[in-house]
Each structure stands twice: as structure tokens, then as C-alpha cells.
């Protein structure tokens, strides 16, 4: 039995956490995540969800509580935004290094200083190298479905997953969302089995100090050094796309919704110009692409759903036919360009894709990005490319740069 309800992105995430039978929740309020922390409190206090809810005194502790609880074998959930995520940064590394299948929603918001409570993706992009899998959602249905998928991915790969969705644009916007039946979710998502059981019968010290080189244990077996453990995390993320695709496939079979695995495409088959981005901005780009087609420009969209591990192979296939590529990003790697732009260029190296790429930074700190602005940006890019321009510096869309 399924029911469709008109709910916000934060509600969708909370419903998903409940459907996943999370056992420990630790959260600290921050706009625009707060509603999610509140709804989960409601679920727990009203008995709709049997979980320990630790109302921590800060985000560093929120992630630490998740680490501790996950270590002893509980399925955990947390969510945050912006500076809260940055405050967790140390523990993000610790969670991934401990190979714990923690799932966290990042309700994307701009990062201070100066303060902004509004949306961009600088917060999660700044966590790129923490060893977390990052998935960006387009709409509220995808948020609900992705949280469910995230647990299965995390508990297969033994790496934490960040489910990212745009603050306010999705978190506070109501959309129809189908909620799967709890029994079907339980069937899709088997109970969490920790990689290490901590008990008195088998006393272990977890995450002790390592020397640079491998060392033998008491029986003489050579054990990993720090570098081997780092390689194993990298190897796990290298192999994660296979899991992510499989989880997406079985989710589509079980629930009838396919969100595209590593990335999704919109009218790219014959597209001359491909627009790309992550999250709601990529969804907005599909409206722009349709509008461009009405004007006779064969446009399509590649939405990058999973940013880490980066879908390099899929991207090469998806972008292959493009004669021009126009990117829209809600973050910037200061001193260079948007992170997605750099990563796509790196993925294309040696692939034969030589199409000019024009990056746009857009919508920082909640500045509205309209589909017609994307249309104009693409037309302007195409004009410059057709005029033979190749040194296309990142454009700050709808921003006074003088």
C-alpha cells in the first residue's frame, strides 16, 4: 500500500528515516534543517518511531553520537546544514575512517561569513574529501527514496552517505511524495550488521594509533598500516558506483521509481549543448533545456546525482555527443572554478571529448535562479563559443561583478 502526500523536503527526509527504522538520532537545529529535527522528535515522542533521540549540544557532538552508536551496531541518522556541517568536519573524516554506515541529510545552505541562511551548495562541496558518499536530490520524492537507498548503499560499502538537498528550494517547498509501505522498505533494507562487534567476549581497541608501516599482530600476521586503511576507503568508494547502480536498479524494481543511479539525463540523445549541475539547479536546467529546444537549440541535461564517488565513466558516455557544455554550480572553489567543472574536465581528459565547457556560478546565498536566466546564459555561452572563444572564464550568473 502506498500513499501520496503533499509534503516538504524535510518531511520527506523524516518519513524516510522512520521507514528505515533508524535506532539512534542525534541532531542539533540549524536553518533550514530544523524542521527535520523537529519532525523526528515528534515521531519519537509520539511513539511512531522507536529510537533513541539524543538532543546534542552541537553538531560536532551530533556526528560523534552517530559514530558511537553506529560503532556498537545501531542504525543512526542525523541532518545538518552550512556551518553545522563545517562544525562536524573533523567527525566526518572520523566517521568515514571508521567505515561506519552513517546516513546524514545535508540541507544545503550558504556558508558564513557573512551570514546567509539561504541555499547554495558550498557547505557539502567543502566536505568533498572527507570520504563520504555524496548524493544530490532533485525533488522531494528523490529525497525520500534516496535516504532509503543511502542506508543500503552505506551498509553495503561501509562508508557514510550524505544525502544533499537544497535548503528552502526543496526543504521548505511542498511537493507530492509517495511514501512506500514500511514492509516493502524493510524487505528492501535488511537490518544493519556492524563490521565489528564490540563486546566483552572479544575486547578490541578501535581506531588506535598506527605507525606508517604495516605491523604484525601477536600471531605474526602482518596488519594494515595507516596507508593501507586509507587505500581500503578509497577502494571502497571506487567500487561504490556498482553498489549505487545496483541499489538504484533494485529500488526501481521494488518501488517503480528510477532516479538514475550515478547520474541522470534529460533529452541528451541528440543534444548539441548539454547543461549540467547538481540538485534542484539541475532540475531547473531541464526546464531551460525544454525552452531552448522550443527555440530550435537542441539542448539536454546531465544531472550529476552522485558527486563522490565521481561518476567519471558515466559522464564521459553522457556528454559524448555534446558540442558545447554549460555548467551551473551553487558553489565555488575559491581561486579556481566550480568543483564540478574541474571534475568533469578531469573525467573528459583522454576521452576524446573536446567540447568547450563554460562554467557558471549561480544562486549563491539563495539568489533566485530562474529557468529563463539559464536559457539566456546558455545562449550567451553558445554565441561566445560560436565566435571561436575558447578561454571561457567562470561566469557569475546574475551577479554584479564590476
Amino acid at each position, binding site marked *: 500500500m502506498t500513499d501520496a502526500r503533499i509534503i516538504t523536503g524535510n518531511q520527506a527526509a523524516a518519513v524516510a528515516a522512520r521507514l528505515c527504522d533508524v535506532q539512534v538520532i542525534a541532531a542539533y537545529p540549524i536553518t533550514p534543517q530544523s524542521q527535520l529535527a523537529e519532525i523526528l522528535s515528534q515521531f519519537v515522542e509520539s511513539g511512531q518511531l522507536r529510537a533513541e533521540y539524543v538532543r546534542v549540544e552541537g553538531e560536532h*557532538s551530533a556526528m*560523534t553520537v552517530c559514530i*558511537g552508536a553506529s560503532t556498537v551496531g545501531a542504525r543512526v541518522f542525523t541532518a545538518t546544514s552550512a556551518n553545522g556541517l563545517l562544525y562536524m568536519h573533523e567527525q566526518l573524516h572520523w566517521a568515514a575512517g571508521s567505515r561506519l554506515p552513517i546516513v546524514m541529510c545535508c540541507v544545503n545552505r550558504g556558508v558564513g561569513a557573512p551570514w546567509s541562511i539561504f541555499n547554495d551548495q558550498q557547505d557539502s562541496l567543502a566536505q568533498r574529501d572527507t570520504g563520504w558518499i555524496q548524493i544530490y536530490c532533485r525533488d522531494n520524492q528523490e529525497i525520500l527514496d534516496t535516504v532509503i537507498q543511502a542506508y543500503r548503499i552505506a551498509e553495503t560499502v561501509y562508508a557514510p552517505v550524505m544525502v544533499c538537498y537544497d535548503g528552502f528550494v526543496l526543504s521548505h517547498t511542498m511537493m507530492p511524495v509517495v511514501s512506500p509501505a514500511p514492509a516493502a522498505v524493510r524487505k528492501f533494507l535488511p537490518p544493519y550488521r556492524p563490521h565489528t562487534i564490540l563486546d566483552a567476549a*572479544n*575486547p578490541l*581497541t578501535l*581506531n588506535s*594509533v598506527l605507525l606508517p608501516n604495516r605491523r604484525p599482530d601477536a600471531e605474526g600476521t602482518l596488519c594494515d598500516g595507516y596507508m593501507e586503511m586509507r587505500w581500503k576507503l578509497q577502494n571502497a568508494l571506487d567500487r561504490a558506483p556498482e553498489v549505487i547502480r545496483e541499489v538504484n536498479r533494485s529500488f526501481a524494481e521494488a518501488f517503480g521509481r528510477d532516479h538514475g543511479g550515478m547520474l541522470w539525463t534529460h533529452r541528451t540523445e541528440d543534444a548539441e549543448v548539454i547543461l549540467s549541475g547538481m540538485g534542484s539547479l539541475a532540475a531547473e536546467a531541464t526546464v531551460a533545456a525544454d525552452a531552448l529546444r522550443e527555440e530550435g537549440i537542441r539542448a539536454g541535461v546531465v544531472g550529476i546525482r552522485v558527486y563522490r564517488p565521481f561518476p567519471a565513466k558515466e559522464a564521459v558516455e553522457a556528454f559524448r555527443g555534446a558540442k558545447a557544455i554549460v555548467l551551473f554550480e551553487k558553489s565555488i572553489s575559491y581561486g579556481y572554478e566550480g568543483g564540478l567543472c574541474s571534475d568533469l574536465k578531469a573525467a573528459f581528459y583522454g576521452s576524446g571529448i573536446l567540447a568547450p565547457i563554460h562554467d557558471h556560478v549561480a544562486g549563491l546565498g539563495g539568489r533566485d535562479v530562474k529557468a529563463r536566466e539559464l536559457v539566456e546564459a546558455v545562449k550567451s555561452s553558445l554565441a561566445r563559443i560560436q565566435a571561436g572563444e575558447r578561454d571561457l572564464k567562470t561566469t557569475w550568473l546574475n551577479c554584479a561583478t564590476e
Partner: protein
Amino acid sequence: MPHNLFKIHEKEYVLPGTRACQGCGLSIAYRFALKALREDTIVTFPACCLCVLHGLYPLTPVLVPSVNSTFAATAASASGIAAGLAALNRTETTVVAFAGDGGTFDMGIQALSGAAERGTDFIYVAYDNEGYMNTGTQRSSATPMGALTTTTPVLTKQQHKKDFLKIMEAHQIPYVATTTPAYPIDLYDKFVRAKRIKGTRFIHIHTPCPPGWQYPTKDTIRIGRLAVDTGLCVLFEVENGKFRFTGRSRTLAEKGNKLPVVHYVEKQGRFKKMSIEQLNQLQAWVDDRWEEYRRRAAESK
């Protein structure tokens, strides 16, 4: 041998071969604490001397399950472990957080305050060696006035030690106690008592440190006892708000024969640049606290 030595659990949970320094006060304290806590315990600790004591992967001399965490996070780590165990109906397991003074008085105070305010069911142990000893004897807010550290190398520590016990008492937790490895039975008894209590329990261990305090490694017990005799370390426990002296401190309070702090200070190289004014200030600070504790002990009777 006093008869009450026999009540101490025979089993060793800290086997020979720890990486602690020679004469380490923590290794004695940890040995007796784990004997009192026994098998069904999960310990969590930050990067600190205890992390060093636990050894280098893949070997450890410690026979209780334990989890490293980050410096600011010890009490939150314990909160997470306790919440996870509660979710899995494993509440009989004792969750114990061990952190040094740096990880407690300084960096860990937020997580500890949060966990205590929430009434988290765990024992928090601050083993206080009065500085960042693991990183090479830098000053912490627990370093006493007049002590040389590598970050107060010329002028010595100018401020008094932070009264962290007051901070913990202000959280109105069911159990706050102080102890020292110099009196292992006092320490053992307090862990046994703490284990039986539910909620947040806080134990402060005054922990002599030969390299950091600059005294011969054979003198750890002597220095620890002198700290008690001079009132720099006062042995007491506060159970549900009721204060009582324990052990040697009770005797001192009854007999009124507390020694001047100079007897403690003169035995340690870290105080060699202490001025007379600082010595007087330290004595006054000790006397003020001592009188306050005596008053509280009388009120609790």
C-alpha cells in the same frame, strides 16, 4: 597487607606491555579502575596519554572493548555508545569515558556539559596530569599556578587551576568524586560505587606524571600522597549533593594536620621557577578550598 586489599578484583585488564611512561600515574589508576568496572564495560577516550597506553595497532595490552574518539568528543562518543546500547537493549554494559585534563577542562567541556545535562548514563573520568603531557607538557587550564610548562617556559603558569569540580557539581549529577592512584583502594571503591549509580557520574583523578612534573619515576605514589597531605588534591565524593571526605583527606580534616604546599611543590622540577608570591597565592587558594570543603562536610553531617 591491609585486609581490604583482598577485596580488589584479581583479574587484570591492563596486561604488561603498555606504552605508558615509566612511573605513569594513569597506568596505576586505569588498572584499578578497570578492576572495579570489570568486563562488561566499553571505554572511550580521545587522543591522549590513555590512547598511548592502549598501544599501537594491531596490539593492545587492554582487555576491555574500547573506542578512540577525537579530542573534543569524548563525552559525546560515550553518549553515542550509550544511546546505541540502549537502542539495542544492552543497557547493562557500563559506558566509561576517560579523558585527560586538556580533553576535559579545555577542549571537551562542551560535549561533557551536554552529556551531563542530558543525564547520559555513563561514567566520565578526568585523569588530570595538569597539562598536555602527551604532546610534551604544554599548559592547560588545569595546570597549577607557578608550574613551568613548554608553553609557559619562562614566566610559569600565571593563573590558578580551573575549579572543574564546581562546574560538574553545577550540573547536579548524581555522583562527583575525586581520587588518586596514590590511594588505589580509595580509587577502586569510588569506581565500584560509581558503577552502581545510574546517570552521569564524574570522577576526577589527580594523576602524577613524572616527565611532566619532573620528579623521579619511583616517586609517583609519594607525590600523589603529598598532594593529598597538602590539600592540593582533596579526596571526597558528592553523592546526590551530599559531600563527604574520604580516606586520607577525611583523616586530615579530622586531625587538622594538613601540610603546607611547599612540601609538595619543592619535590617537583616544574615548580622550580615559582616565586614566593605564587607560592603564597597557591597556599591561599588551597586553604580557601579546604575550608570550603570542611564547611560542606560539616553541613552534610
